[in-house]
């Protein structure tokens, strides 16, 4: 019985330890990246700007999970990657500012902003 309790305590602690190192997404950084990088490019493309409030939380989650940008021509992830940021940083201040941010963290940040700003999110948001 004692062993079970100890095991249980160990398991709980290990979960806590694992979650302590999990990244806590920063929606404000996501907001800056989305508006400065995604929107600045979309604004001049034929497709135009896309307000976060144009999709629901579920639609954004599905979009990010599918990871298909431009109907699958490339991935969404690559536009948040360090390599992409390095390629545009000479002309994009946000890309330069977040040049060293780990890919997954920045992707989580953008996802947090989209979830918050979605049509059914806590604060539906526009592009600017």
């Amino acid at each position, binding site marked *: 019985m004692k062993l079970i309790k100890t095991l249980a*305590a160990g398991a709980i*602690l*290990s*979960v806590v330890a*694992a979650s302590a190192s999990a990244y*806590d997404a920063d929606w404000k950084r996501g*907001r800056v990246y989305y508006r400065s990088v995604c929107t600045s490019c979309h604004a001049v493309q034929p497709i135009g700007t896309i307000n976060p409030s144009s999709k629901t939380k579920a639609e954004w989650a599905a979009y990010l999970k599918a990871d298909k940008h431009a109907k699958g021509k490339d991935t969404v992830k690559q536009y948040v990657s360090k390599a992409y940021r390095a390629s545009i940083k000479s002309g994009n201040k946000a890309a330069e500012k977040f040049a060293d941010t*780990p890919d997954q963290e920045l992707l989580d940040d953008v996802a947090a902003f989209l979830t918050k700003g979605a049509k059914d999110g806590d604060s539906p948001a526009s592009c600017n």
Partner: protein
Amino acid sequence: MKVALALCCAGWLAASGPVRAEEAKPEAKPVKLTTTADHGKFKQLQKTFDSGPEVTKACLECHTEAAGQIHRTKHWKWEFLNPETKQTLGKKTVINNFCISIASNYASCTSCHVGYGWKDANFDFAKQENVDCLACHDTTGNYKKPPGFAGNPVTKDTEFPPGSGKIIKGIDLAKIAQKVGKSSRDTCGACHFNGGGGDGVKHGDMDSSLAAPTKDIDVHMDAEGLDFTCGTCHKTSSHDVAGSRYTPTAKDDKGVQVRGKAGSGNPATCVACHDNAPHKKEPRLNHHATKIACQTCHIPTYARGGIATKMTWDWSTAGKRDADGKHIVKKDAKGRITYESRKGDFTLAENVKPEYAWFNGNVQYTLLTDKIEKTEQRTQINKMGGSPSDGKSMIWPMKVFRGSQPYDPVNKSLITPHTAGNDDTGFWKNLDWDKAIPVGMQDSGAPYSGKFDFIKTEMSWPITHMVAPKDKALGCVECHARDGRLTGIQGVYLPARDNNRLVDTAGWAIVFLTLLGVIGHGTLRIVTARKH
């Protein structure tokens, strides 16, 4: 015990090991840099909160002095004694020409108070749990205090106004409390961007575009660049935020604020960082800076972020109903409201050139106790002191907001009507001044003759935010021209705007005589050359 420890370690290794193995180049473990405490780990906050004061109680278990500090501030008291004019001011007392006054409208207006439950004049200002920590320390952006709830957040889905069918979504206070952090442009902006009842309405140089602005909107707050928060300039100590609309610093001759230097004054002025002679390449401009506020050249226009600010408000046209007896709302082509039965006619504008005036920081308010006369001239809600010769004034950019609002022609005083409120006398519900005014004046403790009229007023708001990048600062010809921006400014000689008849006559005489001399001399040379 040893076994337990070993198991824990094994568990932790098992949890973290594979993640590290997967990554070729492990990223550094994410560390929160904006706070030293992850509030999600505190037991006090791991529960359901049904009201704001419950959250504050939990905060106060550790931050024992915080509420006491807040109690000392203008943000809490909404009361301020101006030491120069001896006027008692503060939001509780002053009147404006937007929504007019908070007296009699507490439950709506106090959604922007840093407290909970200020629904009438009996609010308990001494109670610690009444302090709202989350208004300034929310980082989620989800904390909201809807008008009508006396500064309380709504924690369960609520129909408001009752019977309207409109549902205000309840918010989860535990989630918000577990993520508290430093104040930000978003938290300050929740109230200060929305002064006057909506985004950008009141100030003109503050609206939601400053939440994450580009460099063009504000060179300091630029989210991709310097990323100043409000607190970077409005340096806060013991919860008391520096800077004031009631006693503005019009002329700061104290130079850069060095740490430890005594008597530095207001840390939020431009000079506090940039010094009194900041133009290194163009010393001529430093000469300008002795008479002209930095803001005059460096904020060429306000409301630059794509959000319009209100410029005029005519209460005298309020109260109309359509053929069915219903309230009317009219909008312009951009979807902005230009008429509401509840409020009257508005005009709005973006990218507005300020008006300019000598200003020495002295502001005299027209309060409910002051006598006013209806004349051709507009009544000034706040008289801005200043002159070219008092040695304390600078030329400042202003938003001048003009309106028409109710006043008592017999007692010759302004009026504080009861507007907000889901009751029979609230003007915004029943559009009846004869009900709204007596109740409002009674709540203000002021006499009312029973007669009302409308009086034209104006109110000045010094412009100081939305500082443009230096290459967008005003060029010379904006002012050095016949009809330049400083046309109405007296007391300075402005080349290209001003002239002196004697100097002009003498100058043109010299030009004419020189020309005559040259022509005469040339003619004589030609004539004499032919002779030889």
